[in-house]
């Protein structure tokens, strides 16, 4: 046997955006839009972001610090309700090591003139390479980048 471990956790992030639900949804649905904010930090090398936005469609992006470990995201879309809900199952790899498999639900609700986004991630974090705290911090960073994108 190896040092396998499977740690499960759930976290929820809520954000309020000034943009209307349709605009927030479009930032997830439009490949050119999502590629602007769903990427690693500025200083990372980036590979192309690919998104086939339909149920059963795939999404991928990878990157990392120059010369460092490559972080790869591979997702599959399981549910789409226009302007309301997107469910994606995704895996993360560090180089070739799979570190997690997660289910992420993005809910978008009207909130005055803007939108409230509720993201729930339920995940299996594997073999000690990652944990939910680290993932939540990373995801918060992505939603910061989404806010910047929406305000432009």
């Amino acid at each position, binding site marked *: *046997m190896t040092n396998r471990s499977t740690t499960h956790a*759930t976290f929820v992030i809520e954000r309020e955006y000034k943009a209307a639900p349709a605009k927030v949804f479009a930032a997830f649905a439009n490949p050119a839009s999502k590629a602007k904010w769903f990427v690693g930090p500025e200083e990372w090398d980036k590979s192309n972001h690919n998104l086939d936005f339909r149920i059963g469609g795939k999404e991928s992006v990878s990157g990392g610090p120059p010369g460092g470990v490559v972080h790869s995201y591979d997702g*599959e879309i*399981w549910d789409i309700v226009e302007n309301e809900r997107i469910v994606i199952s995704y895996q993360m790899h560090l180089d070739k090591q799979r570190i997690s*498999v997660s*289910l992420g639900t993005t809910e978008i609700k009207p909130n005055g003139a803007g939108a409230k986004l509720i993201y729930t991630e339920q995940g299996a974090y594997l073999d000690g390479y990652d944990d939910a705290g680290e993932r939540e911090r990373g995801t918060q960073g992505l939603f910061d980048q989404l806010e910047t994108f929406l305000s432009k």
Partner: protein
Amino acid sequence: MTTTTHGSFIIERRYDASPERVFAAWADPQAKRAWFAEGEGWDIRSYELDFREGGAEKSAFRVAGGNNPFPPETTFSNETVFNEIIRNERIIYTYSMARDGIRFSVSLASVELHAADKGTRLILTEHGAFFEGGDGIKMREQGWQELLTKLEEYLSKEA
């Protein structure tokens, strides 16, 4: 408006069978069909299993009498994609359930197998997102309790 609820459950079972045999009951299409798909009160319309990472399992089953709480002819379908397979140790998969073609849940589950007392300790952890009209986490856990009992019966018959 859509509504989404989230929940999780963990089920632990001990089987009088080696991890290799328990794993095979998940990996072999005939074996999996026997305990996972076949059941009283259900008419299996289709079942296919492509057990490899990225492979799919698809089944459709229709209410056919018995103690079934659903109206006759109701058809449920299940679509699974295997995210990770580590032989005899761990299986991780994502699946959706639909009733008459309308998806009502998406789940992520891991099955861990550990050698224990000449048998196997199985730990099933499932996370679910349940949509409007969905069954919810309690019914899903109950369903998996029943399935894991059917797996036990399958393993004891096959021994």
